[in-house]
């Protein structure tokens, strides 16, 4: 199992993702520099971590989308390989079109960091298959542009195709996201973008272990099918 965690200039949750994979789960994980054009041989999954790539200039994720590594990430996704975008990673996925819709500033107009409850909406993805449907996960959010936007037709489609992976619990939506969406999947169900940080909720000591199963699912999904 080998997971590549991309470091963009300004990424700051790359270490945390590597930590959970390596130190908590014993999964081989390594950082990849954004200027590389290829994922290392044997890469089975890719994580675009949280942070402020390019200082969030213009729009979060707008510039990182053009980083050289993104060609290889796209290719990996197109082959069906799992790609997880957390926080800034989700913003990059949305900007790059790997996920539909757009991200807006939080409706509070402020950065928000707190624990939220998110509900597992579908088990049909490498990331969510080890949860129970309807299970509530306790995870932190920490973002300024986390308000997911989708026009009505797109929302209807996401629902029809069961592509909403996580929703904030009713009344616990920290950013005003459409339909309480906290995470969504691409049509192939192998690309997940989510605003909450499962990597900060994978050790009981830090307040919750609910994020762990997501990484376990991701890490074992594509075993042996590496590039």
């Amino acid at each position: 199992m080998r997971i590549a965690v991309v470091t963009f200039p300004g990424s700051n949750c790359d270490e945390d993702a590597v930590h959970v994979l390596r130190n908590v789960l014993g999964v081989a994980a390594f950082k990849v520099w954004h200027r590389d054009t290829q994922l290392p041989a044997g890469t089975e999954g890719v994580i675009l971590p949280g942070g402020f790539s390019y200082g969030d200039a213009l729009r979060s994720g707008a510039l990182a989308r053009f980083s050289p590594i993104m060609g290889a990430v796209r290719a990996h996704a197109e082959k069906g390989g799992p790609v997880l975008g957390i926080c800034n990673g989700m913003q990059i996925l949305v900007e790059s079109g790997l996920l539909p819709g757009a991200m807006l500033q939080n409706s509070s107009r402020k950065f928000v960091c707190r624990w939220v409850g998110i509900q597992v909406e579908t088990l049909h993805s490498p990331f969510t298959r080890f949860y129970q449907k309807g299970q509530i996960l306790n995870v932190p959010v920490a973002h300024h542009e986390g308000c997911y936007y989708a026009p009505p037709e797109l929302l209807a489609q996401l629902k029809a195709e069961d592509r909403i992976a996580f929703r904030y619990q009713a009344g616990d939506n920290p950013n005003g996201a459409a339909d309480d969406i906290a995470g969504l999947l691409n049509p192939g169900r192998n690309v997940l973008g989510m605003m909450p940080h499962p990597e900060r909720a994978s050790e009981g000591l830090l307040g919750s272990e609910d994020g762990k199963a997501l990484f376990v699912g991701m890490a074992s999904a594509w075993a042996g099918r590496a590039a």
Partner: protein
Amino acid sequence: MSGVVDVKLARSHGLTESEYQHILDGLGRVPTLVELGILSVMWSEHCSYKSSRRHLKNLPTEAPWVLQGPGENAGVIDVGDGQAVAFKMESHNHPSFIEPYQGAATGVGGIMRDVFTMGARPIANLNSLRFGRLESPRMRFLLGGVVAGIGGYGNCMGVPTVGGEIAFDPSYDGNILVNAFTLGVLPSDRIFRSAAGAVGSPVVYVGSKTGRDGIHGATMASEEFGKESEEKRPRVQVGDPFTEKKLLEACLELMQEDVIVAIQDMGAAGLTSSSCEMASRGGKGIEIDVERVPRRETGMNAYEVMLSESQERMLMVVKDGTFERVRAIFEKWDLSVAVIGHITDTQRVVIKEAETVVADLPVGLIVDDAPSYDRPQQRPNLEARWTLPNLAPGGLGPRLLGLLARPTIASKRLVYEQYDSSVRAATIQGPGRADAAVVRLPDLNGAPSATQKKGVAMSADMNGRYCQLDPRRGALLGVLEAARNLACVGAEPKGLTDCLNFGNPEKPEVMWSFVECIHGLAEGCKALGVPVVSGNVSLYNETEGRAILPTPSVVMVGLIEDVTRTAPLGFADPGDRILLLGRLDRLGLGGSELVAMETAELLGRPAEPHLPEVLATHRAGIQLVRAGLVKSAHDVAEGGVLVALAESCVAGARRFGAEIDLPGQGELLARAFGEGASVIVISAAPERVAEVLAMAKGAGAEITEIGTVGGERLIWPGHLSVSVAELHDAWANGLGRALAAV
């Protein structure tokens, strides 16, 4: 600016006539404009500590575990197993009053640079803030801007902001305080310092390009505000956390290699102070060619380049022949990098613009001969304020609700939710959870670790009201409170950093309170065995003649051997017994929040701490938490024991009521709302109470059982009965209401 250097121009640079004369005598000639600029910033209060230097010597700075005391960019203490932590606190009061977002942001950026300059990876930020009355729209704007700025910078850097304190008092109406603290970790055998190395070594500039930002910011921080401060606005610097994040990573990457001889961030007074300090600390000279300094703007002259306070820049001396390596790393991170000079043996600072020498000054004149003043001190008539007012008896319930809603006491959630407190996957007790912030240490390389057992605890404290009423005792109480907070999470205090915020030191009463506060800090630190390893002084916090309360903010850092053993401040289970560590009758209403609420005045003398009792209480607290015998621990501070109890009821993960009976026969209000040192509210499972009592007594501490957790109300039979819902509403929404009310 006219180019003719004379006494008038010197005065406009903030130099006094006699200081200017001293320059003429020392040089034997009239300084050039660039030289005047250099000397004026280096001799400013901010850089030279001319009013404070002689008094800071009274602080205890030594302990066997101190690896670096005051004198470098940050203090460093050993935490064992090859690891050390570097930390410091710094003020950005004046810039934040002028432009709150950028002022606070660059304050946070500056203190993080101080810490990673030492070779440490920053792992935690705290801040200590003071604002005036929220009734003023300007004050609400300042609060919003400062908080957004702190978050804007720290969040982007990926350093969690895990704690701090905010208090409000009308004395800060014209001068808010923004003190930022950073702690980082480093290998204990690889500390980087700023003393210049071998003659001939290249001097390398890295980071952002230089623009005309904040020229003369250091002198601004050394002046009292008046009406004309408005015009000083364009001097404000703008922070760029994205560049600083890259600078951090590039510096730490380079520090893995044997390349850097000396490194110094460019903070206040920019290239001037960094180059002069490097030369001075190394006993060498330095020669710099400003033409080689990377610039963002065209047409900058040598004066502007030397005095610019553009952020996110570093100066390094590297080993001869290693520059290509430096270049490779900084270019990888898209940062500017250039050799701009070299180290000399002349003990002079020589600044060239291409081939023209524009400044040539002896290092000794700039640093060692900087003025040092023993400013006159005058003790004010403190006794006049020591008489307590007569407060109407009874009415505990409404008073408790009133206190819980006071902005100084109410929940700060509105603020700390704007800070990323969980990045780095190591925050064990974040903001609002416990009396001190607790962060698990990373591994030796600075990466998160799942096996690391050790953690650091940090607490920011100081009550300016106590310091106004009795500066020495007030400062001592602040230090003790910080240690008490650490005890509540089971941490052994190991080091302290301070930020001394005062008014105009040229006023004898201000100067006296400054000196007294230093004695109070020293007394507390000595009693606790805690060294002061770094700090900062911010004077002239005064507008139109009105000074702030003396505010010698401190952050105390403690060590926890096993981070699975800490305690939150909120109660955990119904049926748990509530106990008090320490003596309630040692507390009093002098300078208390209750008196401030009811009289809007500063009255009374803060309660005297009894050090042996205080130390015993702390010892007992630490032992109990470490033994896992208590489920919560919360110190009694502003608002007294009832406020502490109410907070334990409503501030935890779940909410509870409690039934209590406060011991003693003293005056009821003093028992309920008295403040002072040394009382901690703890809770424990009933079956562990016997062990708790035994352990506390073994540590020499007073301990009393006062009640039980549970129910829907906080009840003191015969005196108080308030519903948990009301307590929670007052406390949780107090700050929000104060901000919304116009």
